[in-house]
């Protein structure tokens, strides 16, 4: 299947003023539209810089010297693609000027100048999707942490962005919250998604592509199975999915390859083929 390139990075480097090292170092990749990209790497690897660069926050709001080319095309119209960005810390996401959860969700729509009825409709729809309906009239500062994280996501999803960037949104969630978020993101079909997370098992199930950063360099950008196998062979200091470890221990490679599977579905197939 030929996939058209949507986002292209061509030898991109980023250096912050006063910094010694490059925050991003010679990064090249091309991402098709509607792809789901998992972003992994240890601290200081450049994940946040990468996300902020994609969102245009660098260099528009945070200044840095940039070399190379970043290009985002939109095939269907000439309009600039819209971007939704979810921060690690949900409190940062909230406008700070909304009396109710409903007002907070509507904020971006009001700014876009949408009609009253349209706003109302969209807020109700997204609230239902993200299980926020019962707290629409509460103050955003009085809801629980988990609800706040869902609200942060709602404020971004409600404007239906073309590109959705989430910088480690699950770091403070419990396992149920994490599973819920991944499930919800997996169901989104109209967005190109970049998701930074440490949840390697969930990421492998979710992502079409994984990219691995270390010290500003892009170590790998490929489908999860290839990335994980490569990471293990090269002893990269990162977590490996349980499925992979299990398959490796049993020496069960995927048919026609020397690679171990990284998703439950593939593992099942590998084991099943074996049984026959």
């Amino acid at each position: 299947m030929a996939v058209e390139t949507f986002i292209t990075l061509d030898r991109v480097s980023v250096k912050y003023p006063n910094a010694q090292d490059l925050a991003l170092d010679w990064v090249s990749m091309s991402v098709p539209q509607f792809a789901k990209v998992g972003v992994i790497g240890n601290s200081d690897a450049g994940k946040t810089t990468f996300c902020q660069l994609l969102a245009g926050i660098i260099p528009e709001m945070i200044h840095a010297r940039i070399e190379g080319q970043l290009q985002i095309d939109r095939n269907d119209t000439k309009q600039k693609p819209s971007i939704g960005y979810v921060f690690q810390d949900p409190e940062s996401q909230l406008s700070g000027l909304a009396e109710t959860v409903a007002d907070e969700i509507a904020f971006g729509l009001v700014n876009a100048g949408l009609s009253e009825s349209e706003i109302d409709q969209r807020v109700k729809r997204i609230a239902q999707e993200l299980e926020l309906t019962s707290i629409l009239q509460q103050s955003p500062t009085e809801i629980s942490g988990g609800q706040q994280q869902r609200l942060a996501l709602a404020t971004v999803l409600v404007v239906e962005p073309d590109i959705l960037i989430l910088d480690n949104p699950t770091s403070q969630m419990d396992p149920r919250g994490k599973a819920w978020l991944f499930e919800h993101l997996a169901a989104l079909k109209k967005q190109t998604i970049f998701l930074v997370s440490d949840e390697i098992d969930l990421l492998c199930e979710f992502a079409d592509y994984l990219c691995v950063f270390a010290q500003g360099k892009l170590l790998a950008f490929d489908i999860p199975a290839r990335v994980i196998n490569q990471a293990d062979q090269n002893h990269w200091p990162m977590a490996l999915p349980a499925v992979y470890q299990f398959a490796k221990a049993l020496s069960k490679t995927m048919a026609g390859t020397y690679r171990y599977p990284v998703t439950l579905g593939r593992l099942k197939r590998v084991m099943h083929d074996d049984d026959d």
Partner: protein
Amino acid sequence: MKLTIEQLKIKNALTTIVGANGSGKSTLLKLLLGLYAPSQGTISLEGQDLKALPIKRKLEMIGLVFQNPNDQLFNATVLQEVTWSVRQLGLPVVEQRAKAALTQVGLEAELTTNPYDLSLSKRQLLAIATILAIDPAIYLFDEPFSYLDFPAQQRITALMRQLSETGHQVIVVTHDMDWLATQSDEILLMNQGTIQFQGTPAALFTNHDFMKMGQIAPPRVMQIAQNFGDYEVYLSIEDYLEKIQQKNL
């Protein structure tokens, strides 16, 4: 937050506290440190009533690592952050203690860095070092892994093991079931301010009611096994492999 605990004894092991959000885990830690006083009943430490101890003596015996390091750091450099903690309790050999603790967490190269110029993961390591430098008998960790990156998680896990083997009591609040299944000696399950279960990881994962109560998902290896129709309890991949090999023999 209402917490009702009939009787609880924790002794020399790596103990994990699990439970849904709002079940009282953090409150229990703060109670153990003496930040909150119990409205009824007593907490004793090696036979001594916690209430009778002066605060500095308490902190010398019990160290609590908070979930978010950003709530605690305020000194000009990494080294000063740790020496401040040591001086605060009036302990001897300040510099040496501080440097040793920073080496233990792997921050020996950052001594003169402003704590807020560190990454979040390193900031959490620094917060852990401030406790290590004091070397209390009891370590309490409140969700220590949420900000640590993978190498740091491994380092801290090894450290916890080492601490518990050298006679320290380590108590960890975490949501990470894979970690708990492989690392924890004993588990406390909390629900609505009470302790519902105290026992081994295997015993916890055997009981569906408890798992439901704590909103606990089984470890990944059990999820893999369940995928193949095997509903036994496995704590690690090695566990499950052993079973498979036995079956094949």
